[in-house]
């Protein structure tokens, strides 16, 4: 009857060693956020945490739960569950856009139905340049710059880049928006936005990378595809003259023209954009849930102010 123990048995001494090890690993885990500098790529931190957590997990399962000594069937059962559970996690995490708000399937009411009405839905990135630019941006820029469509972009050292497509063209005489952004990456000190330190380093991006970043940033001002369905993806979005043609609207909730068109110059984000702040359920209207207005960018220049006021 004691068959399950025939293969051996953990001694009390071993248990004591394991619990001490577990405690030490836990201390190491807690220390990780303090020693990983914030400007270090967080992949290192995540990797460290993952390794430490897995080590604890394995120790507990193998020895406290006796899988190391027990019959293989137990291990088989549990590993099957873990594979299925891990597969579920991997599947969910890869199927759902958990890293950015750019996918169209999130424009619908599913996740933005209630108090999420103000969640920002980023533009759909179309060209390879824009997508490559997003990667570059996530890797290099998010520590200092804010961009609502990139979850990790919450930095306040540099200007908020939401709506930069609209402001960039007016910064330096004779330079288009693209040229200005390109120059700002190439020579960060060429133009310093009021209220910000001249602290951006030259990242040494070559022409291709700068072009990709510019494409990505300029895309941040493009109108969004209609949420929930994509029957009218980016209708008129790439046609500067297509704004506000009443006949193209199927219902008031579908108003794409609430978004300023690139090239429409001074037009601020219209106040018709529903922020749905008051009622938790106000977001159930399609217009509210796909509200494309970047928060705080009621006017072209105001977009930089929230970050600006927080700058030392």
């Amino acid at each position: 009857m004691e068959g399950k123990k025939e293969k051996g048995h953990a001694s009390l001494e071993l248990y004591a060693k394991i619990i001490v090890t577990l405690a030490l690993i836990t201390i190491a885990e807690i220390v990780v956020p303090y020693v990983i500098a914030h400007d270090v790529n967080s992949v290192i931190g995540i990797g460290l945490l993952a390794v430490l957590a897995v080590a604890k997990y394995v120790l507990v399962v193998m020895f406290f739960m006796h899988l190391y000594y027990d019959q293989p069937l137990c291990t088989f059962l549990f590993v099957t569950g873990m594979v299925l559970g891990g597969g579920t996690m991997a599947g969910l995490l890869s199927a759902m856009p958990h890293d950015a708000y750019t996918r169209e399937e999130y424009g619908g009411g599913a996740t933005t139905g209630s108090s999420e009405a103000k969640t920002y839905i980023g533009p759909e990135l179309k060209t390879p340049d824009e997508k490559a630019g997003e990667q570059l941006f996530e890797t290099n820029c998010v520590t200092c710059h804010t961009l609502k469509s990139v979850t990790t972009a919450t930095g306040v050292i540099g200007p908020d880049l939401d709506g930069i497509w609209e402001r960039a063209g007016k910064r330096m005489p004779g330079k288009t928006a693209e040229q200005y952004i390109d120059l700002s990456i190439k020579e960060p000190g060429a133009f310093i936005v009021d209220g910000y330190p001249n602290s951006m380093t030259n990242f040494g991006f070559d022409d291709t990378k700068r072009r990709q970043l510019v494409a990505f940033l300029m895309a941040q001002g493009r109108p969004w595809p209609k949420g929930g369905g994509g029957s009218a993806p980016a209708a008129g979005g790439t046609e500067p003259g297509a704004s506000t043609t009443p006949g193209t609207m199927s219902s008031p909730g579908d108003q794409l023209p609430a978004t300023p068109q690139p090239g429409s110059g001074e037009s601020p984000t219209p106040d018709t954009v529903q922020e749905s702040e008051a009622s938790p359920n106000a977001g159930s209207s399609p217009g509210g849930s796909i509200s494309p207005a970047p928060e705080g960018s009621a006017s072209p220049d105001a977009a930089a102010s929230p970050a600006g006021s927080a700058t030392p």
Partner: protein
Amino acid sequence: MSQIVLDNPHEMGCTGLPHRKVLMWAFLASDCMFFGTLISTYMIYRGRSPADTPQPQDIFDIPLTSTSSFVLLASSYLMVLALAAIQRGDMKKFQLWTAGTAFFGSIFLGFQCYEFSHFYLKGHLGLTTNLFGSTFYVLTGTHGCHVAIGVLWLMSLCILSLKGGMTPRRQLDVEIAGLYWHFVDIVWIVIFGGVYLLEYIITPAGTPGVGH
């Protein structure tokens, strides 16, 4: 229930393992998937809460959560001591360690109650405030439910033993309870790393409480 003892011939299946133990492992395997979906949900909705609603960094208290993590870890250790005691036939020690495990589990629950009420009253984070609130409370609340069930289970074992209803021949009951308890512990290992500590690693700027 009291008839089930280790040498009950009906207890063993053709697997060479007691039925109930196989059942517990199968249950734990399914619970892996259960928690997997909850943790995934939390991860997917990270950073999706409106900026003017409570964010994880605003309200997480790492020293507090670390303490409760240590408490839960220590309770796992007491659990293996309890099982070892009943396997030796040392019922006094078994009662002591089982009561200790349940007690430490209760401390963990106390920390969680404090944390939840603190988040709700001071942090203004309710279940429906934002996606962070919903996913966080459902995930950690589900785990807390598991802990609470485990505490009740261990306490019932302890009381049964005090009343003389436990013998060393019923160590399988303890082993199964232990499997459940350790599983609750490893789920917390994942939550502690993936929910609490991760918050201070992926958020590059403006992280309070961590050297800047």
